[in-house]
């Protein structure tokens, strides 16, 4: 069984948006890492992760996201997340992701506040 993510990079002024299609699980690690590296190589300073609203995120996906947060911290980049459901906002708060990444309700709100 194979799970993949398609991740499109979009530049919105100083914000590099990673538009993530598909569920975020342990299988997402190579796809998210490659997308992050591409953004970093392009000199991204502000990174916005956008997910689809009704996706499945499991503990493996949380670990992958935290590894991305670790890289943004190392590289002094600002990171935000948008698109997630209220349930995953709660989960991200429980595990502490919200201490390192601001969660935005919409892309427009994120772009406005991260610019």
């Amino acid at each position, binding site marked *: *069984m194979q*799970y993949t993510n398609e991740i499109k990079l979009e530049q919105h002024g100083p914000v590099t948006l990673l538009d993530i299609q598909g569920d975020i699980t*342990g299988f997402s690690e190579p796809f998210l890492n490659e997308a992050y590296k591409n953004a970093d190589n392009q000199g991204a300073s502000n990174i916005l992760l956008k997910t689809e609203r009704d996706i*499945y995120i*499991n*503990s*493996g996906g*949380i*670990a992958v996201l*935290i*590894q991305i*947060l*670790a890289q943004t*911290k190392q590289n002094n980049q600002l990171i935000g997340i948008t698109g997630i*459901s*209220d*349930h995953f906002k709660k*989960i991200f708060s*429980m*595990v*502490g*992701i919200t*201490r*390192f990444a601001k969660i935005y309700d919409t892309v427009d709100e994120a772009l406005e506040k991260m610019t």
Partner: protein
Amino acid sequence: MITNLNPPAVEVTLCNQLGYERIAMECSASFAKIFGCPADRIEDLKTVVAEAALNAMEHGNQGRANAKVTIFMDFKDDIINVAVIDEGNGIREFPPKPDITRIIDNIDPPNGFGLFLIKQLTDQVEFARRTDGGHVVKMGIKISRTD
């Protein structure tokens, strides 16, 4: 696995295939909806069922393709009870609560989130060896919990 299956109980058996936890997750959501479980508690239930099934596949059954994971669900006194059964010997040592600051600073490995979420989102949880072999995680979710 379960000897008696009296209404309203449901039993789902999965092959040991990562990704199939979604089947258990969706079954649990369908089961909870029958009893009027609110949407936020259904999301909690889906997460804990998926995480317990994942743990069963990866750690309990150690990825063995011919092993099974059985999920048993029942409803009584406003509580959805779920038992996730694998063929392993149980958890030898519980991981500490994940500390995201230490993980981000590469001091700790990024694991332990599954058990952490199970403990956070359930109203009761118990881990036990089964007398007839295998290991079970028993979880209770009150459908009326509001926090």
